[in-house]
């Protein structure tokens, strides 16, 4: 009985939790319900993943209106993987949020924060699960609006500016997306993604479809912070409450990347129009720019969260590079990095939150000698950093392996060296932290500082452990990602 409705429950459970939280207006209850909802989301996502591994595609007709007339929720191995990532990071963030919110958010706003978190969760899960282009837009707005609020909850007043900046850019992105979808609807008369894919082949007039492709690309690229459309991201991540940064860094851009994959490979993949544009080259160039420019910018940040945010932009470059390669190995690398980087970067943001919790600053000048007083936090941070570099036995290594393999298959030698050379920039910015934390004498800011409390450290360490685990045993991540890549490439002609 429940098994049939898993796809709907995936979104409905967190969506319904939000109004309940607002009605009860109790911080503790809100936290408990958020916890339950997060765990339920993870469980449902895992159940769906198991299902699609057996049957391939789970299609759920909302309200029993058969697709393409009604809204269809369509789960295959690609989005099941993304759903698991979102569920996982929400579950890990739950226990952390308790102390993190207590320290960073005024108490009377706690329950609202949790309500927004549930809405954001529902929105992100909805984007990933829906098979309807307009429904996707609705969920995009739900997740974005709740995200603006979550960011604005940050302690510093600059959080408001960051949130406003994101609001402007996010709205432009969503508008571009919906214009693109409108054009597609005009030409094909359908909004169902799967249906769109089959009908696009018969479209006589190419120009509006071309325009649609352009609008959708720019709109989604804004949401996934593709260089140079990234300006909203660093401040948004830096000034949001710790747990929000961690959750968003691991999920928000990743979901947008999933949408890009869906449109490029499933929707436009079969149409001839796709081949008439140099999308592959454009993405290649922009990815490389992100991998080098944004990573180098990371090395010059004075604030640890800014550093992590710029590093995210560079790491997104890896993912889009894999997409640009558009072969089995490259795409496997992109999808596995979507997951691995989500886990790694969330771990790092949680640890940055631990540091903030004690030191009340994330400026490098104040972090000198931190390893003496917070050895566990710093050690975890170094492990996460090694994964950003891509050292073997960490999750980041797996990505690099597949990206290089994918680049080799294209036969262009110069691409082969791009991901490896750019990971040297990661060495540079990670070592800035190492040298500050381990080699400098502790300053006055660190007097009386203790290790972060276990309730904050433990969730972070679970993710750090996963970072190492997914570097050693890749059967789950690579296995799923390579099947997802097969599915996506199967959508091409």
């Amino acid at each position, binding site marked *: 009985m429940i098994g049939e409705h898993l796809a709907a429950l995936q979104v409905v459970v967190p969506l319904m939790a939000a109004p309940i939280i607002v009605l009860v207006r109790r911080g503790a209850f809100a936290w408990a319900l958020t916890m339950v909802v997060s765990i339920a989301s993870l469980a449902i996502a895992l159940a769906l993943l198991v299902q699609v591994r057996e049957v391939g595609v789970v299609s759920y007709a909302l309200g029993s209106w058969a697709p393409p007339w009604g809204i269809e929720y369509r789960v295959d191995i690609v989005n099941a993987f993304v759903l698991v990532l979102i569920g996982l990071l929400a579950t890990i963030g739950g226990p952390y949020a308790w102390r993190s919110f207590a320290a960073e958010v005024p108490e009377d706003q706690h329950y609202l924060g949790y309500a927004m978190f549930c809405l954001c969760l529902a929105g992100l899960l909805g984007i990933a699960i829906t098979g309807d282009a307009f429904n996707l837009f609705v969920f995009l707005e739900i997740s974005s609006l709740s995200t603006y609020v979550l960011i604005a909850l940050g302690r510093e007043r600059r959080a408001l500016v960051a949130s406003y900046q994101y609001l402007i850019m996010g709205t432009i992105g969503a508008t571009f997306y919906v214009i693109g979808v409108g054009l597609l609807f005009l030409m094909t008369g359908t909004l169902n993604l799967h249906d769109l894919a089959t009908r696009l082949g018969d479209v006589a007039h190419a120009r509006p479809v071309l325009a649609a492709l352009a609008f959708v690309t720019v709109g989604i690229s804004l949401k996934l912070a593709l260089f140079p459309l990234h300006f909203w991201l660093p401040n948004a991540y830096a000034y949001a409450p710790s747990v929000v940064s961690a959750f968003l860094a691991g999920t928000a851009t990743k979901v947008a990347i999933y949408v890009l994959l869906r449109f490029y490979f499933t929707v436009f993949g079969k149409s001839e129009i796709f081949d008439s544009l140099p999308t592959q080259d454009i993405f290649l160039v922009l990815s490389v720019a992100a991998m080098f420019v944004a990573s180098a910018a990371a090395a010059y940040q004075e604030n640890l969260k800014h550093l992590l945010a710029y590093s995210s932009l560079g790491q997104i470059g890896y993912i889009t590079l894999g997409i640009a390669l558009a072969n089995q190995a490259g795409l496997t690398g992109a999808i596995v990095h979507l997951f691995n980087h989500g886990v790694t970067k969330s771990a790092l943001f949680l640890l940055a939150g631990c540091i903030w919790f004690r030191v009340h600053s994330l400026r490098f000048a104040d972090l000198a000698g931190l390893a003496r007083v917070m050895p566990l936090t710093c050690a975890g941070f170094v492990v996460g950093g*090694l994964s950003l*570099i*891509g*050292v*073997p*036995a960490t999750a980041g290594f*797996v990505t*690099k*392996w597949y990206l*290089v*393999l994918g680049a*080799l*298959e294209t036969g262009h030698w110069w691409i*082969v*060296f791009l991901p*490896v*050379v750019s*990971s*040297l920039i990661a*060495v540079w910015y990670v*070592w800035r932290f190492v*040298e500050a934390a381990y*080699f400098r004498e502790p300053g006055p800011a660190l007097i009386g500082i203790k290790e972060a409390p276990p309730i904050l450290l433990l969730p972070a360490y679970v993710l750090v452990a996963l970072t190492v685990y997914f*570097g*050693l*045993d*890749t*059967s789950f991540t*690579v*296995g799923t990602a*390579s099947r997802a890549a097969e599915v996506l490439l199967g959508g091409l002609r």
Partner: protein
Amino acid sequence: MSPLAALVAALAIPLIGALLIAMAGRAPNLREAITLLTAVLLFLAVASLTPHVLAGGRPQLALFQILPGLLLAFRIEPLGMLFALVASGLWIVNSIYSIGYMRANREEHQTRFYVCFAGALGATMAIAFAGNLITLFLAYEALTLITYPLVTHHGDEEAKRGGRVYLGYLLTTSIVLLLVGIIFTWNVAGTTDFLPGGILGDHLGKAATGGLLALFMFGIGKAALMPVHRWLPAAMVAPTPVSALLHAVAVVKAGVFSVVKVIVYIFGVENIAGLSSVDWLPFMASLTIILASIIALRSDNLKRRLAYSTVSQLSYVVLAAALLAPLSIVGAVFHIAAHAVSKITLFFAAGAIYTAAHKTEVSQLDGIGRRMPVTMAAFTVGALSLIGIPPAAGFVSKWYIVSGAAASGQIGAIIVLVVSTLLNAAYFLPIVYAAFFRPPPAGDAAHGEAPIPILIALVATAAMTVALFFFADVPLQLARQVAGLPD
């Protein structure tokens, strides 16, 4: 103990040791007892494997898949056996030395030092026994990272700078070149296992083979082939025991070991012999031998001189392997052991001089042989061995390398070896001469020999240097197996 159990033990003992050392941090005597015990147990486990491997046994252990088709796997073959024997055997001696050195110089963070040391040995064992390139790479990177805290042990500005160069060179080369080489190999051969005769077969064209070889040779930065040698002198900011075991034995030997392993078991000697696109390698190795010797000659700092001597001697191994003649391969393998015992003796002596007399420069060593006769006698043995004078280990390897070069008609290599022998003599013998035959400078502070543990260690390694000349059977047998020659 069954071979498989011994293999597991050899991989696990250093790691368990590191854990116990960390827990015993508050009790220095217990901590150092555990270090010694770990070293002895490790050596016993490794030694117990030797007869089995000599008899043709190849114990192997496959753990799990890192990537589809790529296992974390270990397989012992003669080359790895020899390397593991050398590294684990010298760790015992080095531990005795470390105890003397670290206490006499009142170094800080000693627990971290011993933990990292044990961890480094664990990584070294994993490199020695790696069954495929991916396992080797994993352990190789682990060794770089675990030795970083040892290099930067003093934590001052100079250590930090040295650490940057160390990490910068080693990570850059391994990530940008070695990793790409490994993935390239996997892409064309469909495997990364080390197999006798190589795995590349005729999958690759002539130019691509040369290119791949370059990725490996410069990617294995630990072999310090010029121009990727700069990290080695930079690493000399570390305390002397680290320089002695890691930057004369474990880390650098992991480099040349990987070089030999890749040439023998990935490319296959017969596959690439006579290929014009790999001719650059003996040339680069020769260049490194000569240039590094000249720099050593011009360095007044004793540890720096030894470091450049190491760069030069490492390229002996690379050159010998690159000659692609069976006898020279024997020389290459034997030199891994010969250079290890000789160079560790020299570093021990340098550390003893620093501990007892606080002298670091060659020009300060006039007459020091009168005050520290044991130390300087050991130093002389090590120096003679590296020059290649019998009865010392260095002579044996040089003999085989020259024989191989002569048998395959590579006269250029012989000339390089002769010139380098002269250069070695030129930078070592003046030290010996000054120590024993020049009068000490007036007003020199009175001092005697270094503490007893240090003396025990350096006498032991000097004795090994000579012993390896007279009892070279086991290493030579292993080396002949690597080269595919009958025993």
